[in-house]
């Protein structure tokens, strides 16, 4: 299974995390064997073009959602309601049908014997959960996660909230340089909102530390054909637009041309 597949799968379980966050679990052994940390699926609440004729409801695009967990085929998607597509997903219950295209993208490189820092913001958490399970037995890991408030944070080593309602008050990258030094970090993995990632990249580039950064982009196809999800990647004098859905979503922090966003 090299290229993304299209599947319709029943939702086995729906887990409620808060008003805004929930997890959908499906079961598919073949997809489970194919997926790697950092990859994602384009998913959607089952929509039929037949609806166009009967209900005049126009089906919409799939939405990219990371693999949050993968237990040999028990695949989980942790989702935050933010707009139309994720709200439609949030109306799904166990037994309802999910449409999936994936696994998409390349995922994180996986190492052994490193001192690793995971840093995530908001909905950047899910892919790092799957990643840390892959890394945990072979590396030293420190995971920092930040969010707006209490609802946006999840289990990890160090929690930050902007409103200070739980954990440390501020942005998760506020003390980053010190943390990296203190923990003698040699490898950083990050995922989250653009502003956060940009700051993390600046710091790791300055400290010249290996950093794999998972980017977001608005997507149409999710499989590399439309070039809609492009981000500028490469050296300052020799960059091109790479596809988040195909060459990404994970890029080497040194190559992300933030100045061109």
């Amino acid at each position: 299974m090299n290229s993304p597949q299209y599947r319709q799968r029943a939702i086995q379980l729906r887990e409620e995390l808060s008003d805004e966050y929930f997890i959908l679990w499906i079961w598919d052994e073949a997809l489970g064997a194919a997926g790697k940390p950092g990859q994602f699926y384009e998913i959607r609440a089952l929509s039929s073009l037949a609806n166009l004729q009967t209900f005049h409801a126009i089906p919409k695009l799939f939405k990219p959602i990371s693999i949050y967990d993968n237990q040999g085929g028990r695949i989980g998607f942790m989702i935050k309601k933010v707009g139309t597509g994720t709200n439609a997903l949030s109306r799904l219950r166990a037994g309802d049908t999910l449409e999936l295209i994936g696994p998409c993208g390349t995922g994180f490189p996986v190492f052994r014997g490193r001192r690793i820092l995971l840093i995530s913001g908001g909905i950047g958490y899910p892919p790092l959960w799957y990643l840390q399970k892959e890394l945990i037995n072979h590396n030293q890991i420190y995971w920092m996660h930040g969010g707006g408030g209490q609802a946006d944070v999840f289990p990890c080593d160090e929690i930050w909230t902007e409103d200070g309602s739980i954990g440390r008050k501020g942005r998760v990258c506020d003390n980053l340089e010190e943390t990296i030094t203190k923990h003698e970090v040699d490898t950083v993995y990050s995922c989250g909102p653009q502003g956060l990632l940009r700051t993390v990249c600046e710091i790791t580039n300055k400290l010249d530390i290996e950093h794999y950064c998972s980017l977001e982009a608005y997507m149409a196809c999710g499989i590399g054909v439309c070039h809609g999800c492009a981000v500028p990647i490469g050296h300052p004098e020799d960059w091109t637009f790479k596809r988040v859905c195909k060459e990404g979503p994970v890029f080497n922090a040194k190559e992300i041309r933030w100045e061109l966003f």
Partner: protein
Amino acid sequence: MGAILNDIWGNSINAVKLLTTRLGKLELSTPLLVASGTFDLENFEFFDPACLGAFVSKTITREPKKGNPPPRLYETEAGLINSIGLQNPGLDKFIHEKLPVYRDKLSMPLIVSFSGSTISEFCQMLETLEASAGIAGYEVNVSCPNVENEGIAFGTDPDIVFELTRRLQEITDKELCIKLSPNVTDIATIAAAAEAGGASSLALINSLWGMAIDYRTGKSKIKKGIGGYTGCGVKPVALALTYKVAQAVRIPILAMGGIYNWQDALEFIWAGASAISLGTANFINPLAAPELIMGLGEYLLSTKKSINDLKGKVEI
């Protein structure tokens, strides 16, 4: 034809015959194509390629093109705005890296879409492409700005379209399809100019101008501001223009613009299309192509009509 159709119609040879159509110099096994820039080999993971009568590749230019800055996409209530900016690897890389793969993998005719910014650039590109094996025809994307003519897009001036087509048809004997822009005052005159110049078919429509703004922040949803609008919401426009062009020319029309299902496809065939393409629908429904071709085949079988019987027979 493919197993997919036989499964449904019990090896019916009739449906297969009813679906054949002619696009200029090409005899196609089905009237269904895919719109340039919205489909590639990856999509064949989702369904049997036998659905498609031909394959249209993403527009290439002579030099590689970086494309537009992100964000490049935004979905509106009834369609999609895109601003890809013709990102492509350029003619050389296409010929040396993509074309061999297409030759290898495609089981249907390949139509190569290309674009230039002067007439001679178009001609040079065509000459180079003609030297390569595995190409059944060309779709000429005339929506690029013309550097010789104050940056006005080629496709908006009938005289330029005539001259461009005349020059191109001298270079090739293969299918020569001119793809028209809908953003013009009088598409019929431009279509007629392409026909007079020697085009063997026409494709329409390319995207409409479209824009979306975040109402809270005032920020354009697309980095470049105005993008190309496609999908469901453009269908009435595409259908009107298909009908206008069908009244103005005799060469076959490859119609597209908001086609999502077989009922939509039939509307365009009634209006005068010989073949139709799925564009945005490929994003909305990965199975849009097989579902369309099955619905269309069943309709044709049940009415015992062929594409040819319906084509242009709209009753006004």
